[in-house]
Each structure stands twice: as structure tokens, then as C-alpha cells.
């Protein structure tokens, strides 16, 4: 099975990758990531459902409900930061397809920093909530809230680790443009984390 490097310089967005044969005509790495993301929809679907089912505490003695301690302006800024990280991620993918390694590293670092800012905001938010009496075991609604947003936070953290790994690979010269699909695959994961937050922000924080 011979690999063929293809670089298209004629089009508006140059596209560099290695072509090879698979049973589906889609690279196994990319197909695997999409199957993983489809299964992740079920994971987050279950967690969001659990939160919606239990979002109201049984009694006031169980402490404040999540919606009583939310700081919407603060979470809005965090949401905006994560949304913009999707832009920097897609710009990193475009840069590696162009073979512009300096910009790839710049956009990947920017994406990781924006993700880290989001995580810092989430840690701060959790600290404030615990200070206001809403701990993990305070009520079933608080448990559901922390489990859902905590799982999302772990996904963002894993994404940051992957981004830093890509930067290190690029610095060592092990991320040539014909391996652009590696950046694209990590990008798929990152964008998925963003779309999950789009749902969480609307359903959990904004909808009364």
C-alpha cells in the first residue's frame, strides 16, 4: 500500500495530506475520531438529561439550587473565550495545510491558552459555588451539575494536553504538512468540546 503525498497549490486553501487506501475511503484515524465523537454525544446526552431531571432540589434544606448561584455574565465571558478558541483551532488547521509551521504553533498555543482560561474560569466558578454552600454532595441537583460541567472540563483539559503535544511535535519538526490530518483530528475533538459547551450554556445556564 503506497502512500502518496498530495499538495494542491492551485486552490484558495491549499490542501496537503497523504492519500492511502482504506475500506471506506476515509482515513481510519479520522473515521475513528468521528465514531468517538458520536459516542460522546450519548455520554453528554445522558449527563445533560440527568441534570435536567434533577435540577430542582427536593427541599430548601438541601442548600441552594445551581440556578440560584449562577453568575451568568461571568459564564458568558467563559463561553465567548471557548467559542473563539474554535476559531484559532481552525486557523491552525488552515496554517498546517499551507505549510506555515510558525503560524501553526502560534494558533495552537493561542487555542491552548484560551482553553486554559476557560478551565481557570471554571475552577473559580466552582470555588465560588462551594463557598455559597453548593458542594458536590449538597443535593442531587448540585451533584448532577458538577458531574456534567466537570466532565466537560476534563474534556477541555485533555484537549489542552493534545494541543501542547502538537506544539512540541511541531517544534521538533515532526509535524510536516503532509501530516495535517493529525492537527485536523485534534481540531475535531476541540470543536466538539465547543459544541457541547454551546448546548450546556444554553440548556443549563440560560434556560430558566
Amino acid at each position, binding site marked *: 500500500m503506497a502512500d502518496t503525498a498530495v499538495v494542491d497549490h492551485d486552490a484558495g486553501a491549499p490542501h496537503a495530506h497523504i*492519500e492511502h487506501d482504506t475500506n471506506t475511503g476515509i482515513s481510519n484515524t479520522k473515521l475513528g475520531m468521528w465514531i468517538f465523537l458520536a459516542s460522546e454525544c450519548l455520554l453528554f446526552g445522558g449527563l445533560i438529561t440527568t441534570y435536567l431531571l434533577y435540577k430542582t432540589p427536593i427541599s430548601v434544606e438541601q442548600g441552594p439550587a445551581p440556578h440560584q448561584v449562577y453568575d451568568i455574565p461571568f459564564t458568558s465571558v467563559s463561553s465567548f473565550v471557548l467559542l473563539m478558541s474554535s476559531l484559532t483551532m481552525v486557523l491552525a488547521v488552515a496554517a498546517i495545510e499551507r505549510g506555515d509551521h510558525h503560524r501553526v504553533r502560534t494558533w495552537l498555543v493561542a487555542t491552548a491558552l484560551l482553553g486554559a482560561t476557560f478551565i481557570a474560569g471554571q475552577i473559580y466558578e466552582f470555588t465560588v459555588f462551594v463557598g455559597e454552600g453548593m458542594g458536590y454532595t449538597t443535593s442531587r441537583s448540585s451533584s448532577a451539575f458538577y458531574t456534567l460541567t466537570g466532565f466537560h472540563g476534563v474534556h477541555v483539559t485533555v484537549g489542552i494536553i493534545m494541543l501542547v503535544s502538537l506544539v512540541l511535535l511541531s517544534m521538533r519538526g515532526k509535524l510536516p504538512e503532509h501530516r495535517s490530518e493529525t492537527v485536523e483530528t485534534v481540531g475535531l475533538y476541540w470543536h466538539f468540546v465547543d459544541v457541547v459547551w454551546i448546548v450546556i450554556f444554553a440548556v443549563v445556564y440560560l434556560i430558566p
Partner: protein
Amino acid sequence: METQTADDRSQTISTGFLDGARKNYPREVQYVIVALALAAITGLEIATYAAPGFPLWNWGEKAGLVSFLLLLMAIKFWTVAYFFMHLRFDKPILTRLFYSGVILAIGVYVAVMATLHGFRAGQH
């Protein structure tokens, strides 16, 4: 140990075969325009919190607000998936695969809420 026969190889497909995909992804400026649109939609979402009495979403008790927010959420979800995740430009099978997961997740939501009477306030 199994060996790949010539017949097996003839059934494989090159990843370069477009099969409904577009050859090239958009230019960077298009990504920036999409991001600006997403930022504007996020601004609208925040506006529902900042100005709850605005007539566009303040109707039918909470029905107007919920419908408006769900619509904005769906638009943002679709935009990121289609433009940033390249579903619009990639092979259609990936779109079907991803939305199968989304539809199954919605099915899980409906099944759990219906089973545990989650759609009726005060029943859970």
C-alpha cells in the same frame, strides 16, 4: 497469518476519492466571518438574560424565551459542526455518522424523561 489478496485490495478506496466531499476547505477570512456571526449569536443569548422583557423572546410565559434560546443554540451547534468541523466540505457519511449520535442522545433524553415523568413538573 492472513495475507491480503489482490481481490481484497481491489475493494479498498483511496482517501483521495472525493465521494461527495469538496477538494478544498474555505479561506481563513471565511472562518473569521463565521466566528463573528457566532459571537453575535452569543451576544443575542446574553441579551435574553440582560433584557428579559424584550418582546422578541418575552411571550407565552417562558415559551418564547425557551424557543428563542433553543433556536440560537441549534444555529450555533450547526454552524460550528458544518464550518469549523468541516462537515459541509467532507464526505456525507461523516455527517450521517455524527448526527446519528446526536439523534440517539436526544432519544436518550426523551426516553429517560418520559420514563421518570420528567416532563411533568413535581413528578420526579
